[in-house]
């Protein structure tokens, strides 16, 4: 019995274990400590070629956890990439630039300036990075309009006033040199123009996409004009569900997305194929095929430029229509 009375508490104590943590809650150093740069702001490359999948890794270390941002601005394009974070260190884990853009146009081959700013700190820290090769979009490119309009596409352009449905190359270029301008006034209808991109224009009966709708993304760059005539861009993805090599509205599925262009400047729009629904007069409606998203059955993509129905006028630009796999396009 003498042994029991001493051994039992010891056994109980030994059976218990406690999570080994240095302290509870957020670090007081991070919350209230003074700021200083423990390691300077650096980049692992002075010149980068994004076309060869190279990246720039930024680095820095602070005396405390900070809200920080790195803003990279193209010297010629004025393209901007912003990387933000909240950490004590800037490392490969949170500050890698792969040539993508936050505020379009996309970067060109140009000198860039990277500026590190820290919340609550007046000073900023600057680096120079040169680009000698731009990022090449990866995926199934429907068009980037670098070769103009493809004769195998079907186009329809209304004959209204101030119609401008042309591939242009000017100061508005966002990626590469060309983009498609779409503008005009059509008082009797609200369709300004459309382009059908049939799979046959790409050398096959269906587009070469995967079969899992959650993995397929459609992406494009759309420019919003600074005018009150909110353009609408309607994308229609037409499938061949009954294997007739053609889209039949009464027997096949069509998934749609209407984008109201209510912003100013270029914006990258990405759509997950599984999120799309069939629209009838702008409202979700039942489909007529197998009622399943089958991206590998797409036989045609249609892009319609619509005006605001109450105004009849529309103006926008578009570029870089690309399907990507497993993730939205990064440009």
């Amino acid at each position, binding site marked *: 019995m003498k042994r029991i*009375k001493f051994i039992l508490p010891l056994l109980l*104590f030994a059976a218990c274990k*406690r999570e080994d943590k240095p*302290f*509870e*809650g957020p670090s*007081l150093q991070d919350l209230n400590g003074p700021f200083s740069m423990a390691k300077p702001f650096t980049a692992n490359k002075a010149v980068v070629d994004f076309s060869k999948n190279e990246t720039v890794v930024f680095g820095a270390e602070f005396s405390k956890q900070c809200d920080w941002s790195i803003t990279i601005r193209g010297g010629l394009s004025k393209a901007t990439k912003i990387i933000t974070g909240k950490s004590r260190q800037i490392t490969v884990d949170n500050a890698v630039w792969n040539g993508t853009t936050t505020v379009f146009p996309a970067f060109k081959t140009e000198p860039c300036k990277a500026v590190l700013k820290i919340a609550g700190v007046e000073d900023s820290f600057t680096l120079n990075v040169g680009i000698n090769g731009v990022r090449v979009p990866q995926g199934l490119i429907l068009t980037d309009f670098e070769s103009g309009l493809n004769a195998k596409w079907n186009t329809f352009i209304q004959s209204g006033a101030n119609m401008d449905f042309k591939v242009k190359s000017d100061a508005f270029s966002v990626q590469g040199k060309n983009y498609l301008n779409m503008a005009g006034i059509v008082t009797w209808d609200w369709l300004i123009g459309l382009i059908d991109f049939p799979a046959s224009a790409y050398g096959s009966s269906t587009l070469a996409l995967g079969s899992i709708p959650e993995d397929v993304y459609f992406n494009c760059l759309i420019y919003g004009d600074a005018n009150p005539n909110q353009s609408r861009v309607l994308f229609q993805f037409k499938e061949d569900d009954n294997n007739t090599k053609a889209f039949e509205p009464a027997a096949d599925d069509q998934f749609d997305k209407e984008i109201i262009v209510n912003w100013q400047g270029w914006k990258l729009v990405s759509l997950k194929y599984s999120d799309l629904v069939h629209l009838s007069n702008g409202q979700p409606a039942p489909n007529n095929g197998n009622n399943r998203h089958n991206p590998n059955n797409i036989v045609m993509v249609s892009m319609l430029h619509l005006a605001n129905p109450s105004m009849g006028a529309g103006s926008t630009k578009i570029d870089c229509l690309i399907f990507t796999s497993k993730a939205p396009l990064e440009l």
Partner: protein
Amino acid sequence: MGIRNVKYLLILIPVLLLHTAILAQNAPKFKVKGGARSLLSNAEITVQDSVPDEVTARKNAGGYALMDLGFNIMPNKNTEIMGMIRINNKFGGFWGAGVTFDVRQLWLKGIIADKVRYQLGDINLKQTPFTFWNHNEDRQVQQPAVFDLQRDIVNYESFYLPGTWRQQGAAVDFGLESGRLSSEWNFHGYLTRLNATNFGNQPERLHAGTTMSWTFANALKASYNLSRIFDVKETAISNVLFQNTVQTAALEYNKSISSLNLTVGGESGMSSYRIVHDTAAPHLQDFFLHAFSRVTPKNKRWELELGYLNVGPDFRSFAAQSKRLDYSAVPNFYNRYTQLQTDRPLHIADFMNNSAMYRTGISTKLMSYNPLINNVLPYGLATFNRKGFYLKAQADWFKKVVQTSVQQYNLSEVVGQGTPELKQFAMTRADLTWHAGSTLHWKKQWKFTFSGCRQQTQRKSPREYEVLKLNSMQASAGIEIEVMKDIDLMAGYTTLQGKGSEMGSTRNNYTEVIDFGKYAADLKQDIAGAGLRVRFSGKTYLALMYQQMRHRDKANPFQNYQIGQMMAIYNMTF
């Protein structure tokens, strides 16, 4: 309940009383228990503000009369039933307005086969300070008798008995004895309901527990304790289920050495806290160890206890960590004041006289606390993230004419808050009661009481922003003089003072620390009171009292106030 129903009940009660009294002529099967109380209060507030307060009514008068009427019925020798109703009438109500009619308690208990005791309904329950316990850590100093009258009312209203919580459910006890082995086995189990389901996001929440103990030769006692709060599956649409389980083992060994009784004991165990099907919720597990050694002479004139405590930062035992005092409760008068009608800071007097600020059940969330009142062990011995030693000593002098006790706690955190540097906690408590009448061989009672508690919280660090120091002091002095037979004159003074800074933890719904808030204090609160008590019997008295409470906060001088309050209390229990 409508007035008509009250009338019927008032007619029915005497009929029942008469009927059962006739029955009681043959056997003592029926008892009436209860109490009555009336309280009259007249208070006046004075605010020190640069802007005259033209919104708050300076004077506040009110009161109530209430009666608790309990029927204790024993239909047979093995069964006892208790039902108590309360009629409460706020002064100023008439023709039924302001009258409430409640069931105050209802229970049934009995013995099966002379072996198993059971109780259903309202039950007073407790286990150990780490599993299920009603601690009283917000009362660190002994109060003078003039203020104790109000504390007794709070305890009566909240059903507070040492260590117990009043719960609703069922409990069962039984024991086995083995004469040959001189050993005894005891089993205690209970199941109570904490929350009823709302059929949506709150499932039925129950609390179950058991204590199994084994005593050998009156010298060695070992016990296993389990306390488990849990949601019952499929009693609501939500499948999110709260679970808090605490398991402990306790051991106590007594031995006589010469003229001394030596006790060595301890308790150790583990807790688990999780919320099933809530992916954001952590699974907190931790343990504690409490060990002590106590020495007392055979005549029990003094006692000395040395203890060690180590409670992990993630130790969660809501049934032991619930506090009586709810600091988020609203005081019963002058809850808003000044021209801007700001919330009046709570005063220690509010804690004495307002039973509405006290909980009657356990909380499954960590309750807030006032670091000036208790920063060392705010959740009792089960306070998480504490380790260190304590020493307790008490002694009676001159045949119990003078009674003294001293306690010293020196603790620290187990894990730092936002830094590896640990906070150090120190608490010194001392109480002295002097029965001066006995010393001077007077027939009438003269009793003096003195009590003090000093707490210090400190964190040292080479980094200035981590340095903390908070000192607080509570002290009281009281006198109780029997000026004439059964007439007592009472006076007392209690103060709470604190100065310094502390960093409080902000916790999320899962009790994890997510931020820290700076707390700075330079505060003094006190209450002085005097009164006269007429004792009609041991259980009945009438008291007339006046008390003056002051709140002085140097950090917010425009919130300083003082309240004078005159009270008349008539109290009777039967």
